[in-house]
């Protein structure tokens, strides 16, 4: 079945079986393997991308549901260099193995869009859909706080 969408700013089209998940479309059809699949119960968040500006779990969307939508993946985030969230994740050592990181970053970007100056509790709640096994989340929360400060024009 045919579909059209805008992927990381570029119009793309595909013809895929209906049962194709958005995550599969991104990874297999479009070769954007930065979006990861970490579970099969919609809980780990490694597959998080932005659809029409909202963070969603691409493993629990059909590709067809994204027909006509604007999709941004981790590859499209730092279109002009690194996004402040990406930088903050590295600088605060908010990643170790990096597998959860694309989804965590996409969820964090959306969190800051909705709440530009979140408290640590609000950050934790905002990332409740994302699992990390390596970092213990301490530095991830610090990273989001630092990104928030940078994006508000404050010194980190």
């Amino acid at each position, binding site marked *: *079945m045919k579909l059209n969408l805008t992927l990381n700013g570029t119009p793309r089209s595909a013809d895929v*079986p*209906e*049962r194709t*998940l958005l995550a599969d479309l991104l990874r297999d059809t479009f070769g954007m393997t930065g979006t990861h699949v970490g579970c*099969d*119960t*919609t*809980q780990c*968040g490694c597959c*998080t991308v932005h659809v029409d500006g*909202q*963070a*969603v*779990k691409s*493993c*629990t*969307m*059909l590709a*067809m*549901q994204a*027909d006509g939508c604007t999709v941004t993946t981790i590859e499209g985030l730092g279109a002009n260099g690194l996004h402040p969230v990406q930088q903050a994740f590295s600088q605060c050592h908010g990643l170790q193995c990096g597998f959860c990181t694309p989804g965590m970053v996409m*969820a964090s970007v*959306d*969190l800051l869009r909705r709440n530009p100056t979140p408290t640590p509790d609000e950050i934790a709640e*905002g990332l*409740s*859909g*994302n699992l990390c096994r390596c970092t213990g989340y301490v530095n991830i929360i610090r990273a989001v706080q630092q990104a928030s400060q940078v994006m508000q024009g404050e010194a980190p």
Partner: protein
Amino acid sequence: MLLEAGKDLGISPGQVSAASPRFASPVAFRVDCRLRRKPGVLEDFPVYAFKYQRAESVGAASAALSADDSAKVLSGGMTLLPSMKHRLTAPSALIDVARLPEMTGVRQEGDHWWVGAATKHQDVAAHPGLQKAMPGLTTLAGLIGDPQVRARGTLGGSLANNDPSADYPSAALALQAQIITDRRTIEADDFFLGMFATALHSDEVITGVRFRTPQRCAYAKFKHPASGYAMAGVFVAQYAAAGAANGGWRVAVTGVANGVFRWHEAEQALAQGAQPPAMQRDDVIDDVHAPAAYRTHLALQMLAQARQSLS
């Protein structure tokens, strides 16, 4: 009960676990199904491909469902798609209603608020009018799943699925909801028929829900530490007393038993200003995560928390 061959129960994987320890893992459930088949029936085993169509209108969606009794409505997909991925349900077609404007939105209608069935949880949670009129509903919507799930999941999908641990059914029961479909209006008290069962016909489409504006309401939820569903969720709403035995109070409980229910003893206790008694039910969920006694205790706790939020 869960193994009736050929019956599409639309059970989400987590609910297999929570509700019935005997068939906890999707692998076990699926294969037990297979083993029950008689020889020679394997050739008929459903193929997992399906047709996908975006409905042009509610009428078109309903017609598509009538034409194919293995077709299902797709709204947010937050429970249907995981179920399909685990091969617990295999519809022949998905009728996508998520973008129908007539099924999306929030508006006041006199002493009710109408919420479109395809309205996302995050939009309900953030709606200023609803926040003022029935804060329990917006609190509830903001506690479903996680942010990404709330960006996709919808009211209609939650109600139609009637997961015994889902949140929305408690709001519908407590807020005297009218479930509006493509052909009729069903009162909430008549809608929920037990675990994963509703009064909907197989080709019927929920278009929206009218919640009756209460004097006040609140929702308190104890999240399951793994799934994030309600281990106990209590919705409390107060309406004008009008001589009713329950003094206008409505208390609905989810996550505790084999389906959402009105907690009449708690309503009466609220009306009398008394302490609610311990819950007496023989269908309280008892599993490896929480024995029945703990769940009924949590119900009392959540009732107390909800009461506290009322003021």
